């Protein structure tokens, strides 16, 4: 266990809308739980499930102070960091967002982060499942 109770933030979990008010995805805030800032190219995986529904790798974007990138884009970015303690925005591009008409106040968010840490044979992995309040 390392910083895991701080990984998924209580605020910032909501649908994402386009200029016409249509849902185009959802977002939440998370911190990395590894004890160094993370070189973006070390992010091997970031999996997201909401109430058990898992999204595809291609649907995921990560926004840090360095910008917004897909997981594939980050594989070539060793010089850019997701800073230690920095709350990054995870965006999941999904036409239906968090589900039309689903107004449950709390949703089960299940997130796994895998990092390719050179000195650790299996790398670094953190997995947290938490009920997070869905903002309007």
């Amino acid at each position, binding site marked *: *266990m*390392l*910083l*895991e*109770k*701080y990984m998924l933030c209580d605020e910032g979990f909501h649908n994402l809308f386009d200029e016409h008010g249509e849902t185009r995805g959802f977002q939440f805030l998370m*911190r990395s*739980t590894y*004890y*160094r*800032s993370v*070189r973006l*190219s*070390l992010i*091997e995986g970031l999996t997201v499930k909401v109430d058990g529904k898992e999204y595809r790798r291609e649907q995921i974007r990560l926004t840090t102070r360095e910008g917004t990138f897909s997981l594939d884009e980050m*594989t*070539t970015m*060793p*010089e850019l*960091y997701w*800073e*230690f*303690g920095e709350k990054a925005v995870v965006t999941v591009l999904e036409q239906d967002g968090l589900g039309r008409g689903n107004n449950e106040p709390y949703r089960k968010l299940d997130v796994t982060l895998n990092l*390719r*840490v*050179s*000195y650790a044979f299996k790398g670094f992995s953190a997995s*947290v499942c*938490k009920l997070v309040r869905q903002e309007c």
Partner: protein
Amino acid sequence: MKTCVSLYSLQEMFYLGKLDFEGCVAAVSASGAQGIEILPEMNCCKQYKNPTPAFVETWKGWMEKYHLEPVCLDIFPDYKLYANRFLTLREQLEMFRSNVEFGKKLGFSIIRGLRATSLYFLEQALPLLEEYDVSMGIELHSPTRLSDPYFGKLFELIERTGTRRLGLVLDLSIFTNHAPGVLVRQEVRKGARQVVADYVCEQYDKRTPQDEIERGIRQMGGTPKDFALLKAVAHSCYEEPTNLTQSIVDKIKLVHAKSYEVDENDRDTCIDCETVIPMLASKGYTGYISTEYEGQRFFHDPECGPFEVDEVEQLNRHQRMLKRLIAGTNSNR
């Protein structure tokens, strides 16, 4: 011996933004330490490659203002930067040069490396350590023991080349004489049974071999959570302090005084500093001993709730303990 603090000790406050970089430096100074150790990728990653002159000036200003000596820079061998290949030796040396140069600009004289650094790489890196006039210590940390083959070969390399640039960062986690209470309590919160926790602690103190403890737990009807507790405790080890030979002590560049918990009487509850520090002094160790408080991570399970351990208080207690132990030796004459 002089005392130092690694900013690893204040990681939670820094992570949560309760202390900024300067705030951490100030807390180290207030603890009474004379030196500081940092993890650039924790504390100042954006400056790690090509620090700006303004950043270097600010850092030097802090060292003067807070009366601290930059002691050790913790670096990591990131040879798996890309998913599809390892870095070549030349790329690794370039990265290493950049890391060492950063340390040198900030005034650090010791580089802390990891056991994952190949001995072949270290030999290739020796001229670079000479060029920058710094030393490098490879960290020896539990459950790795003093008899570990990697360190045997490292010692051979040091003797064969006659270099004074390479050595050891000795982490006192190898002298864990009681199972860390904070760790055991965390495993109990996660579902291990108290009766098993008590049994494991008792057997750890008796230095019972792990497979025997495992058999004992099985006889108690061990659950997966009970065995998870044993696995967590088995990361600790107790090396006989007498195994610290003169030849090993002579190769120590820095001592990491790992700590999981210091009680209100300024005593470490599980690491045998009371024996080891006088022993280091008796063998002529005069370098820095650096507090590396790591107990906070045992309060990071969701079951623990919002409780935050007071890292600054733990750090202050640990520094008072180190100063008491050092004062009790004759090494400062």
